[in-house]
């Protein structure tokens, strides 16, 4: 069983990610990541998983929303190859109830994480939505091999291609699956800044 652990994240991740090292398999006790029903999630890689993708998203970010079909396509493409996809909602206002409605509206069927403490954000060093983080599974350990844009469709808010020409996330997944080194993206991701946890919306109603 492969586990992405809090210990791994909080104690060793920073160093190891930077050095491309492996995470050890440690208990997940301290990580405050839940599914939309409020259950703590500590297991990110199912038994057969070789790759774990965390897809950081925001329910209200237009670019993040527009990528939903592309992520669904990738999920479909790699379904049988041991790639586990998670949607991760890190923004303070993306409460469980908001996310559940979003999943219904956009027919999202992947597994979903609420990360309003932004522990996964800090672990993976993502900054915007949508942005992906890819982990290679090795035995019981997870190693971050990629974080950044999904593809090069958006060059900036004002410039987008009709269709992507470089599918960075897809290539990263394929590289892991085929045992090749992962190429970092040429450019940073384009999207909505992740709202800092301290900036929770003063006027929004708290959600369960």
């Amino acid at each position: 069983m492969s586990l992405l652990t809090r210990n791994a994240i909080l104690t060793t991740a920073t160093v190891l990610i930077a050095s491309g090292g492996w995470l050890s398999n440690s208990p997940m006790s301290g990580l405050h990541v839940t599914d939309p029903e409020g259950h703590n999630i500590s297991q990110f890689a199912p038994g057969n998983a070789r790759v774990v993708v965390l897809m950081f998203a925001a329910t209200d970010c237009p670019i993040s929303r527009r990528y939903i079909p592309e992520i669904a396509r990738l999920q479909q493409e790699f379904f049988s190859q041991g790639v586990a996809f998670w949607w991760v909602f890190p923004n303070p206002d993306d409460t469980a109830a908001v996310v559940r409605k979003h999943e219904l509206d956009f027919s999202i069927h992947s597994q979903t994480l609420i990360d309003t403490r932004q522990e996964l954000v800090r672990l993976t060093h993502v900054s915007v939505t949508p942005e992906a983080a890819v982990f290679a599974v090795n035995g019981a350990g997870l190693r971050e091999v990629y974080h950044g844009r999904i593809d090069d469709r958006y060059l900036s808010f004002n410039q987008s291609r009709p269709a992507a020409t470089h599918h960075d996330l897809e290539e990263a997944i394929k590289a892991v699956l085929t045992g090749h080194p992962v190429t970092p993206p040429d450019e940073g991701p384009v999207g909505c800044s992740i709202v800092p946890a301290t900036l929770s919306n003063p006027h929004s109603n708290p959600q369960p």
Partner: protein
Amino acid sequence: MTPPRIPPLVQFLFVFIVFFAAALLERSSPVKAASQPDAPASSALLTWAHDIAPILYNNCTTCHHPGGAGPFSLLTYSDAKRWAPQVAKVTASRYMPPWLPEPGHGDFADTRRLSDTDIAILHRWLATGMAEGKLAEAPKPPTYDATWQLGKPDLVLKAPQPYTLSAGGTDVFRNFVLPYPRTESHYIRAMEIRPGAPQVVHHANVLIDRTASYRRQHSADWQQGIPGMEILLDAGNTFDPDSHFLFWKPDTPALIEPEDMPWRLDPGNDLILNIHLKPSGKPETIDVQIGLYFTEKPPTKQPMLLQLDRDDALDIQPGDKNFVVDDSLTLPIDVEALGVYPHAHYLGKDMQVWAILPNGQKKWLVWIRDWDIDRQSVYRYREPVQLPKGTVLHMRYVYDNSESNPRNPHTPPVRVRAGNRSEDEMAHLWLQVLPLHNDPDQPDPRLQLEEAWMRSRLRKTPDDPISLYNLGAALTGEGKYKEAVEIYKKENNARPNDPRTLTALGAALDGAGDWQAARKAFEEALAAAAATHAQLCDAGFDLASIDLRRQQFNDAEKEFRNQLSACPEDAESHAGLAATLGSEGDIDAAQSELRAAINLNPNNPQTHSALAQVLSSTGNLAEAITEQKAALKLQEDDADGWSNLGVLEARTGQIESARHDFEHALKIQPDHAQAKANLTHLPAAP
């Protein structure tokens, strides 16, 4: 006299009718990215209430409100705080608010360009912690009605079926047909569009299809909407050029026309909604409604949409970063320009449009340095731009078909030419112009614009059949029959036996006085193998009409009867047969043909008037008055009609009504001799 009919021909480029149909007579009646802005000089702490809310309310919230076209709301402090990093970024790059024209190159109403100071304030507020400030200082938030902005419309048109936009993929360009269901004409003073899913509708153009031709072209599947950016419409038998920019984008929900320039819808018209949709990430239902607001007042000003274009020159090699096309058009009359609409697809980069006045002065009409199809718009001038006769309009568009153009639909780039798909290109410019001098006794001045425009097109593509046809039609409309004959002969030589051209040639020949040759042309049109039902009906009508005018009543009757057995739905042929029968003395038969004509088309004042005369001759004065009034309701400025009504009313003893009618006729036409004489025959007022 019953004027001949020329069959219609129209080409529709992208979204506007470029060509009109028959000319002769109406049958029935004689950004550039900004550098990082400087912070404002004031060092006072910026707050949402005092500094930010006014900027957002004035510039952003028309789209960015709950349920609005923007993807998120910017109405509250928490909204502003949530989106502050994006707001600072997209305003600094001038992506938002959407506004492409370069300042100082055309003075436009509703300019959406943010000032450098406002951009700096938004940036500094983000940088200094996004304080809320005293709520009491905040302006009252604007309210946005989720229903119709102008109140309940007089008529709401709906697409026959909702359309489902898929969750992802490339942008969608689709045309929905919305039939106009009324049996009477209306002038439209305003229009609102409610697209159903405002956040995915980028822009829309509404086109008037006078003859429901697009629906006929797609009879099997028009209900679902037809994909494509370019459509071809048939404008019908009258010179009725496109005149209004019915352009919609999310921040202009209500399109209000100037009071003196409403547009018109007639029975049988369709509206075509040409719509640009951007997938949102989930399937969206596009369930379009168009709200129309009527006015009783007919237009007193008749603008026209002029087009410059260089589609013929678009042949862009892969890798070419700097492909240039240009076009020019010399104005044959004084006009004022009211608005401008530049258009290209994804390779368009720099678009310059200007005018050189007869005195040599250069006047900018618009300059877009970084074209973006997603943010295209019609731009209306704050004040009309005066363009005297002899002014030369210029457009110069630059295209980038290199790999470094991120909007390039092809990777690697491929050779690109003009076409209907979004990955093809276009080089179009529309200018809404208003002729300055309009003499009701002269042909419509827009015919001269049409002539100049078609001649300009023919200089670029000398053999273009549509330009040839429409030039012929414009010349015919201007009464330049001999020139029209030459043009149609040229077209007929290039593409022999086209029934439409033959009928138009016949009409021009008839106008030039050569009725024998005209008859021959109509007969050839009738014999042409390729003739459609409508074309046969047009040619047959024109042939019979010549014989009616020549008082060859036997021939005319036979031809009209032949015509009606082939085209029983043709109201004007019933009226023509009525005129023939009336001339032959068969009043009862004439009356029944006129009633048949009115049944088929109740909106033709001439038929009502003719029936009034027939009824009057049979002594049925009461019904004659009713018919004459019906005619005048359809054509209020008909001095003869008022005089005739006066005679009918005088004959029934309604002296004061008759007096009023004669006076009305004289008000319209002060030298109306008959009305003057009739007035003197009335007994003096009591």
